[in-house]
Each structure stands twice: as structure tokens, then as C-alpha cells.
């Protein structure tokens, strides 16, 4: 990052801070809410799961309205501190930041993470699309500031933030991507005929799922059972951490815990999106850029290596690659990742 760019950045940042008080009343309406806290005291299993060392629940919860869809926002830090926006990955929720966000808040930032439509405490929408998620991200940003703001995104959230930054360069002061840099998919080593059959099976399976979507509910279980199910896709994460996540991203019904995510959502794409399109946009980004990659192969990761993305870095952009770390860099190494981020963000 050049000195000139950094100074520019500080200047922009000061403008935001100065405008904060002036604009507090003209942002989108923010409604404080209580994220599903029950009146009864926690049972022993719940209390134990909630007591994960280093995890801290948000200081405030608000609901904002994105074109008719209610989105849950979670905040750490002082309300008048400079804001930083965080975006979680696909099939995740902002609970994934309960280790990292407090470290940034303790360093003087107001950290805001939102649950994407259908995820966490946000409303289950009728329709889901990449473009709708980007539009929602802008609605969240508008609810925080009309100026610029640093953004941090993990996985799909990192990719969303790259698109937001490309579409709204005047709103994003710097961009931090946590293992959300796609690389080109390897060419399938199958004949065209076989590939067509695979695609047909996948499409039929998705359509079958849609036919039954209106009556789907998530399977209930104990905290441990939900954590074990999540461990299939998050095999590197500490099971105690996954149990903690259950107490944030799942709700306790009469018949057990079940993930809050909309049951009509299904992993994977249903359309023509291609990861190289995101890579092609990277060199155009105009704000300071930091990418953090976990080098260990992981179920949910694109498996991107530094050499895949370095050719596409914007001017002055930086890549940090973490050895012995998987896709959830911020959950596996919250302290190291927070240090990288705080070092990269402007000094408060």
C-alpha cells in the first residue's frame, strides 16, 4: 500500500467520522430487537456451549429493512466509534464473527455484522439471488453511514463485498477479504456427454427440492447433534466452537434445536455464475485491498492459492497466506487475523 493511498484513505475516513453525528437521524430506520432470548434459564448443556473462551455476543441487535426484507444487524463497540462492516459466508451467519469482532471493537471500532436474507435472525425471503444479496449489503451500509466505511467479508461475504466495492467505490474505504477469493474451477475431466448427464441430475435434484420446499423444516437435535452435523462441512473447527455457534444460529424449539436458516435454501449455485468473473473485477478495485487465505484444503473453501490471485490484485493490494489454517481463518486464528486487520485499517 503506498503512502499516498493511505493518506487519502485517512482523509476519507475522517470525513465519515465528522458526518456521523449529523447523519444519525437520516439513515434507514434501525429497530432494536432481542434475538430470541427465552425467559427460562439455560439448561446445563446450553450454558456450557455458550461459555466458549474468547467468544462475545454483540452489544446491540437491530433490524433494518432492505426493500421489504428484514435483516438482523449485530454490533460490537461504541455507537459513535468509526464503523466497520462485516459479511459472513454462504450458509453461515454473523455468529461466525463472535471471536473476531470483539477484538476489533476493543481496538476502538464499531463493528456491524448482518445476517444475510434467509440466514441467522434475518427474515426468510421468498427469493434469493446474488444481486439481491449485494442490494441488501448496500441497504445495511446505508443504515450505518452515508459516507465510506471499511468492509470485511468471509468466503461468499468477501465476494459480495468485492462486488459492492466495484459497484459503489465511493462508499468502501478499504476491503478485507477472508478466504473469499475464488479461483478458476478446474476443467472437468469428463466427456461432454457425461457432463451433460451430471448437470441434468443436479438440476433435477434441485427442482425436486423446490417442489417440496414449502413443507421443509430443519431437523431438530441436541446442541451436540447440530454441531456434529455442521462439522461435516467445517471439519477443521473445534467442536466446542461449533456447539457455541448452535446457541447463536439455531433456536430451541420444544422438540430440540434447529438451525434458523431458511429450509428452502440449498448449498451451491443454481445459475450461470462463474468464479473467474469475480477475479476479472479485482484489478479494477480502487480502495486498499487485503486478502487473507487459509492454505489448508477445507470442505467449504475454493482452495485458492496466492499464485491464483496475485495476477489479479489491484494496485497496492496485499495477500497474506496462513499456513496450517483452513477456510475459517477468523475462527481458527482470531487473534492473528485481528492483528492483520488492525494493522491494515487506518489508525483511529
Amino acid at each position, binding site marked *: 500500500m503506498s503512502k499516498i493511498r493511505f493518506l487519502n484513505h485517512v482523509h476519507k475516513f475522517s470525513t465519515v467520522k465528522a458526518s456521523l453525528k449529523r447523519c444519525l437521524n437520516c439513515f434507514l430506520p434501525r429497530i432494536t430487537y432481542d434475538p430470541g432470548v427465552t425467559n427460562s434459564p439455560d439448561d446445563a448443556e446450553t450454558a456450557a456451549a455458550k461459555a466458549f473462551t474468547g467468544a462475545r455476543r454483540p452489544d446491540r441487535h437491530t433490524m433494518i429493512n432492505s426493500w*421489504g426484507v428484514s435483516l438482523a444487524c449485530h454490533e460490537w463497540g461504541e455507537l459513535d466509534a468509526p464503523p466497520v462492516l462485516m459479511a459472513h459466508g454462504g450458509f453461515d451467519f454473523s455468529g461466525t464473527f463472535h471471536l473476531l469482532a470483539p477484538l476489533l471493537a476493543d481496538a476502538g471500532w464499531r463493528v456491524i455484522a448482518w445476517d444475510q*436474507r434467509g440466514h441467522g435472525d434475518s427474515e426468510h425471503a421468498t*427469493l434469493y*439471488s446474488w444481486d*439481491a444479496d449485494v442490494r441488501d449489503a448496500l441497504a445495511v451500509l446505508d443504515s450505518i453511514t452515508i459516507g465510506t466505511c471499511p468492509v470485511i467479508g468471509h468466503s461468499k461475504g468477501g465476494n459480495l463485498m468485492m462486488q459492492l466495492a466495484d459497484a459503489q467505490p465511493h462508499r468502501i474505504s478499504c476491503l478485507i477479504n477472508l478466504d473469499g477469493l475464488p479461483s478458476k474451477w478446474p476443467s472437468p475431466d469428463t466427456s461432454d456427454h457425461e457432463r451433460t448427464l451430471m448437470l*441434468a441430475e443436479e438440476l*433435477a435434484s434441485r427442482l425436486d427440492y*423446490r417442489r417440496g420446499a*414449502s413443507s421443509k423444516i430443519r431437523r431438530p437435535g441436541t446442541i451436540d447433534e447440530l454441531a456434529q452435523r455442521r462439522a461435516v462441512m467445517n471439519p477443521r473447527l473445534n467442536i466446542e466452537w461449533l456447539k457455541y455457534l448452535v446457541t447463536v444460529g439455531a433456536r430451541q424449539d420444544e422438540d430440540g434445536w434447529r438451525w434458523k436458516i431458511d429450509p428452502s435454501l440449498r448449498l451451491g449455485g443454481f*445459475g450461470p455464475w462463474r468464479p473467474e468473473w469475480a477475479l476479472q473485477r479485482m484489478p479494477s478495485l480502487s480502495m486498499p485491498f487485503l486478502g487473507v487465505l487459509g492454505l489448508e484444503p477445507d470442505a467449504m473453501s475454493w482452495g485458492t492459492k496466492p499464485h491464483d490471485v496475485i495476477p489479479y490484485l489491484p494496485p497496492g493490494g496485499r495477500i497474506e497466506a496462513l499456513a496450517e489454517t483452513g477456510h475459517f481463518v477468523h475462527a481458527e486464528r482470531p487473534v492473528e487475523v485481528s492483528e492483520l486487520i488492525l494493522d491494515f485499517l487506518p489508525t483511529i
Partner: protein
Amino acid sequence: MSPLETIMLTHDKTQLALHQLTTGEGRPLLLLHGLGEESPTSVPESAQQWPGPVWALDFTGHGESTVPLGGGYTSEMLMADVDIAIAHLGKVTILGRGLGGYVALLIAGARATEVRGTVITDGPGLFGGPSSGPSSAHILTVANPPSGVNSPTPDPFALIELSTDIRPPDYASNFAQMAAQMSGLDRPITMAARGRSPWIDAVIQEVGVDTNTIEAALANYAAIA
């Protein structure tokens, strides 16, 4: 004129209006309207020789179907709308206008044994947005977003999102190939549209895709079992 009957079908959180326009013997013909349109109330001239019953589906956010809040439209989700209609009607032949023609191509590939012939015609939303990515990033919003499921149609989010969706030629070709390989029909898809765009150019190159008039195509499909 008004439809003989309108049935509301459930697709996840949406209620879809499926209208029966005529009765008849044999396989139903399913009409898919263009972007921003709604189902016709009578059988169009070009389909009047169809021997079977004629039905027409209102896509999500169109006609009498419910309007979602906050947009999020994709052609693939409209394909799933059509699949809900197929689950109700059984095997169908499809006549799609514009966007409905592109969606008809998708379902013809994805449900190759259920769709017995697809005719794609000119109409609103035929071309879509860029033929391939990347395109410059943008965020589309509307001046008067829907306020509830009974908001007026068409949903302005449908208009902006489905006129700008990316339709890569090789992606469209995949669906034509699936229809050709798995339908068991010689010519499962007929391009009756006169308009040309990269995805249409790619599709008409595929084996199993005919170019013909709507009337001739429907006569061919009416003759198959």
C-alpha cells in the same frame, strides 16, 4: 373472455396462478408469458390448432401470482415455477414468449422427459442482459418496491432483474444438449423467434433444435406421443 379455471399452486412461499384456457383431448400445451406480461385470457391465434387443453402460467411477481418482497429473481427460479406447473399437469408441450421462451429452454433441458417439445418465440425479455460475464458491477433498485404479496404486478424488481440477467451462450447450449440427449425426441426445441442474440445463436447450432414457425412446430409436437 376469461379462463375456464384458475388454480393456485404453491411454490415455496409463492402462490402461482395457473389458468386453463381451453379443454381438449391429449397432452396439455403450457403457455409462458414474456417479461412484464401475464397469461392471455384466450388461446393465441398461433396455437388454436392445438388438440389438447391449453394452460397458461403466471410467473412469480406477474399476473395473479403473488409478489415477493425484496426481489431476487432469477430465470432458474422461474424454471422452478414451471416445474411446479408440470408437477400438476404432467407431461406438457411448452410455448414460451420472450423471457418465457428462455425459461422454456431451461425446463426443456432440466425435465427432458416431461417436456414434449418447446417452442421459443419473440417477446419481452427474450435477450436478457450481457451474454457472458464479467460485466461492470451495478446495484439495481426500484422507485416503488412492492409492499405486500397483493402488490400490483408486474413486480418492478422482476422487470429490472430479469432484463439484466447474464445468459452465457454455452450455458444456454447445455440445456439444448440435455433436451436433445434425454428427451428421446428428434427436435425437442423449436426456435420460432426471429430475434437473434448470442444465446439464441448458440442454441440454434445444437443438434435437436429446429427453426420453424409456431404453427408448424406445434403441429409436429401434437403428432408425437
